[in-house]
């Protein structure tokens, strides 16, 4: 079977398009590259959904945690503590079995037991908590002069937030937020190793990599392929976030711009 044929069969296997049976013997390099790459679709999907949705919740959480109102502050603090204080792995398990129990109560929860929605919700909450903490830190370190200048210009309420606090907060938080994004993409590999089942063997990149490692007893090929995909993907995330960072810093003189310093990846 030619490599092109393999690509046609398996490139979209992880979303259920193409050949149904996974290769069982005589694994070629081409098959491993294609299937693991196909699994990356899920990693990218989880990462993007959680990151985009989490961004807004994180802003709300940071505002809540910095608020003087107890009713806003306490829930935000607890939310952040809950998701940052416990392992993501356990969160996945708990959420899966929670959704499984809720399924019995109402059929509204049916789709949540699949990884595509349920795990995305968990990742969304998780990254919102981590990002919320980053944004909260940035919110506290907005230069006082900026806020006083806003007051002097007669800005207040929403306008002050929209024009002054929020952009400055983003600018200060951006390097740490970039690390969080990378970290989140790495964390997406946990999904199919926790409670969530890979229905019809549609899994993410790590799922296929461990499939090959189990079948061939040779971890030295699939895992480096996976590593290569992730390093490439990390580089492109860094590229995109670097562009946004440049835009956020465009009004500053060159030497005061905050550089992206990459300290990616610790487990969560």
């Amino acid at each position: 079977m030619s490599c092109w044929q393999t690509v046609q069969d398996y490139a979209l296997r992880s979303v259920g398009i193409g050949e149904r049976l996974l290769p069982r013997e005589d694994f070629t390099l081409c098959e491993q590259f294609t299937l693991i790459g196909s699994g990356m679709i899920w990693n990218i999907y989880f990462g993007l959904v959680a990151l985009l949705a989490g961004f807004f919740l994180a802003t709300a959480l940071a505002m809540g945690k910095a608020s003087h109102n107890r009713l806003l502050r306490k829930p935000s603090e607890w939310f952040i503590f809950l998701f940052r204080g416990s392992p993501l792995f356990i969160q996945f398990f708990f959420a899966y079995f929670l959704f499984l129990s809720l399924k019995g109560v109402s059929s509204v929860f049916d789709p949540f037991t699949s990884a595509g929605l349920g795990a995305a919700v968990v990742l969304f909450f998780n990254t919102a908590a981590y990002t919320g903490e980053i944004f909260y830190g940035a919110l506290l370190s907005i230069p006082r002069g900026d806020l006083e200048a806003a007051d002097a210009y007669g800005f207040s309420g929403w306008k002050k937030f929209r024009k002054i606090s929020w952009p400055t907060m983003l600018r200060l938080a951006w390097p740490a937020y970039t690390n969080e994004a990378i970290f989140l993409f790495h964390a997406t590999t946990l999904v199919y190793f926790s409670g969530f089942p890979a229905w019809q063997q549609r899994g993410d990149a790590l799922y296929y990599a461990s499939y090959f490692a189990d079948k061939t007893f040779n971890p030295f090929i699939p895992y480096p392929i996976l590593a290569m995909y992730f390093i490439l993907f990390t580089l492109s995330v860094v590229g995109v976030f670097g562009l946004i960072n440049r835009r956020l810093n465009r009004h500053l003189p060159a030497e005061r711009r905050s550089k992206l310093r990459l300290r990616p990846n610790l487990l969560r």
Partner: protein
Amino acid sequence: MFNFCTDPDTLPKLEWFACYLTTGKHMGFYFSFGTVLLLLAITAPAALLFGFGGASAARARFLPLRWFGKAYISIVRGVPDIAFFLFFVIALDQGFEWMRHKVKCPDWDQPIRQGNDFVVCAQAKLPLGTAPQWVHETYGFSLAVLTFAIVFGAFSANVIYGAMRAVPKAQIETAEAYGMSRRQTFWRILVPQMWVFALPGLSNLWMVLIKATPLLFLLGVEDIVYWARNLGGTANPRFTDYPHADWRMWYFLALLVFYLLFTKVSELVLDRIMRRLSHGQDTAAGEAQRRAAGGPP
């Protein structure tokens, strides 16, 4: 466990819970919390040792050693860690067996990788096929510890490397002016002074290490996740070992609370250590303490 448990009348009563929670299998579950703590107790110093080695290698003068140190730090940090966990367990196991194979069976003429199989002679198997069950479990556990130490060693190597660079240059130059050799400067000046700079990073790492322990489950150790899944589940909807419905949610809720408490306690303890260490130090925290005690501004 309790005498009244032998009486079937307790089943509908609340005492039944006391019986349920003290069955032999639950004892295994509680024991596995000990496994997690044991893992932490062994891994933390081991990872620190790996980290110290990695950081020293990364700043060695000998070029290949420096490359090795830097590659170790950056590769392990650049890839999803869970991939490393899955990779190292197989790779280490095969590595050990391969080495034993080379030593014990020098006249073996077949290839080790035959298609999809990894074949070594019977004497080289680790652990030996005839070994009792506890040897297998201990071997699995030590592989897990080694894997954790390698991965977290890279993280702590990065922290320690940064801390070594944060030690003021003047200190090193003074040591050289006193005529100390490179080795003496390293052991007597650099290493004692770097810990204050390393501690915030290392305590952060400790929190991360706590949260990484459920991954033991993926490495095939019977840890708390394993037991929670088994005890909470119904073996089979109709005929079940456990007299309850699917309780896995509650078991994992218990684990969630356990981890939350554990991180909270560690946070308090580490705060206290940090306060003690920065006492009298020329850092922002030390300065704040001095002012709070009423020292001159």
